[in-house]
């Protein structure tokens, strides 16, 4: 019974309460991600040029992530790959959010429209996600654009489900019925009552889509679809590293993958903590 009290004291002791801690985590991780994107933009071609004099070097102070068989600095390659991943993730999430909003509005329009949306979601979920991305990217003729569009077009399902359920739940609320009885139009109710509840959900959902999109992009690229070998994508780097594993060049796979993991984790953390700020019900844990 006294645990909560202890917790409070402890965070007071640390000088930060839960709110400040949460904000700090959000701020710090956002900064980290921003730094990655910015640095990937400013990397010039030179640091990526081949230098056969320093190939296959294990990690050192000069090359913290080591170098590859062409003497390229793996840290630079990784950073650039991560930048690309984040940009693709952002693109996919945005497209998904737009699709979600359209489908959400559609589903609230009427029963037939709602079944159509639900049918579309079921359809998209009926094939394994990875296979669907592969299929779409092949349909679009492969290449970078195939993968990017494939990833972008397949991530709306989960968010649409959430939004649809939320709209359904909202529509049964007494205050919505009351609003209708007070003579308000459907459009008025949608914009004044329903949308304010949905916007935070969609924002949060969009952020939480990032990690999925990033991981899928990397996976499909790793399998050899889409991005061409000279693009600095994490998937490419890792699939190349496969060839050098038996030679013991572990750093080629280890650091790029770990960095990807950290980026994905960072997005998860941001989403999680924003969620806590918005809905503090479970914050006691």
């Amino acid at each position: 019974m006294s645990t909560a009290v202890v917790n409070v004291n402890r965070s007071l002791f640390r000088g930060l309460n839960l709110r400040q801690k949460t904000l700090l985590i959000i701020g710090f991780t956002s900064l980290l991600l921003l730094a990655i994107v910015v640095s990937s933009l400013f990397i010039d071609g030179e640091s990526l040029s081949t230098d056969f004099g320093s190939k296959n070097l294990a990690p050192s102070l000069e090359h913290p992530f080591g170098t590859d068989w062409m003497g390229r600095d793996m840290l630079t390659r990784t950073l650039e790959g991560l930048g690309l991943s984040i940009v693709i993730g952002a693109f996919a999430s945005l497209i998904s959010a737009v699709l979600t909003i359209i489908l959400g509005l559609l589903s609230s329009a009427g029963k037939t429209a709602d079944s159509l949306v639900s049918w579309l979601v079921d359809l998209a979920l009926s094939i394994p996600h990875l296979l669907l991305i592969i299929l779409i990217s092949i349909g679009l003729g492969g290449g970078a654009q195939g993968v990017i569009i494939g990833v972008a077009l397949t991530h709306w399902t989960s968010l649409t489900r959430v939004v649809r359920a939320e709209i359904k739940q909202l529509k049964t609320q007494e205050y919505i019925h009351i609003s209708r009885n007070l003579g308000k139009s459907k459009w008025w109710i949608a914009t004044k009552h329903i949308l304010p509840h949905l916007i935070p959900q969609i924002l949060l959902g969009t952020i939480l889509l990032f990690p999925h999109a990033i991981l899928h992009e990397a996976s499909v690229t790793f399998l050899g679809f889409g991005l061409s070998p000279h693009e600095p994508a994490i998937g490419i780097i890792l699939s190349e590293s496969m060839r050098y594993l038996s030679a013991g060049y572990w750093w080629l796979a280890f650091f790029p993958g770990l960095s990807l993991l950290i980026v994905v984790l960072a997005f998860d953390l941001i989403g999680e903590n924003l969620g806590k700020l918005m809905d503090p019900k479970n914050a006691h844990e």
Partner: protein
Amino acid sequence: MENKTEINAKGKKGTEALLKVEDLSLSFIQYASGLRQTELKVICNLSIQANRGEILAVVGSSGSGKSLLAHAILGILPSNAKLDGKIEYDGQELTQKNKEDLRGKEIALVPQSVTYLDPLMKISNQVIGAVEEGKEGLMKKLQREIFQKYDLKPDVERMFPHELSGGMARRVLVSTAVMSSAKLIIADEPTPGLDEKTLNETLSYFKDMANKGCAVMLITHDIEAALKISDKIAVFYAGTVLEVANVKDFKNDGENLRHPYTRALWNALPQNKFQAIKGHQPMQDEVVDGCIFYERCSKKNELCSKGIPQFKKVNGGVVRCNNVS
């Protein structure tokens, strides 16, 4: 509060206190939107006592924190609760450890609805509860007897909670308490939305238990129901008890009632004057310095705004008011 014999007119039933709650305060630490921390005071400086062979009703409006009083006594509060004050059972102070040992054996709870039963467990297993090995047969027999007494057919044993009708659910919930042979029964809103027949039936079960020597604490918002069976009524207002009155004090215009709030409550009942006083019960996060009824009181004086009035014994009851003698 040692004078039971003069409070209890009947006096015969051996009415020593089984449960004593003194100066109990309960607050919650909560996170509001944006994770701002707030402390919510739900119960403050509450004192009551439940006697053997008597029914004590704790009456207050719905959602005012009465149920938490029951949870505090049983030691089943959520982890973000902060509890102060003293609870004594049978002369012994109730620590969390004691509560855990006594609940289910000496102290039993009768909850308010079937949501308090495991939705995936058959009724008989739940009524019997977790028993030590070797005792199942005995308990099974006892359960059958109790079901028979409460007119629950044998097929009820194999039902799941959602299959019970309202009246059946009530009897099942009561029988869980009877199974335990507890001496203190805490009934938490046991009569919500019941029709008159089921209501009276349920109330009679509690009367039975009291007649057998149990102390029954009946937490309810229904004064009328409380008046039907209770011996004493504790009036709960804004997180504390303002008065403990005898049932016979509730009559006419309430002139025998001690606290102006109790009187107002009595006169506001539809079967009485249906007369309202002005003002509102203070919110849980409002800090009130003096008497919590100060704002609405017609007899208030300067003293009332400074500190909560202490309990006084008046005319066979207790009251927290400066203006009664």
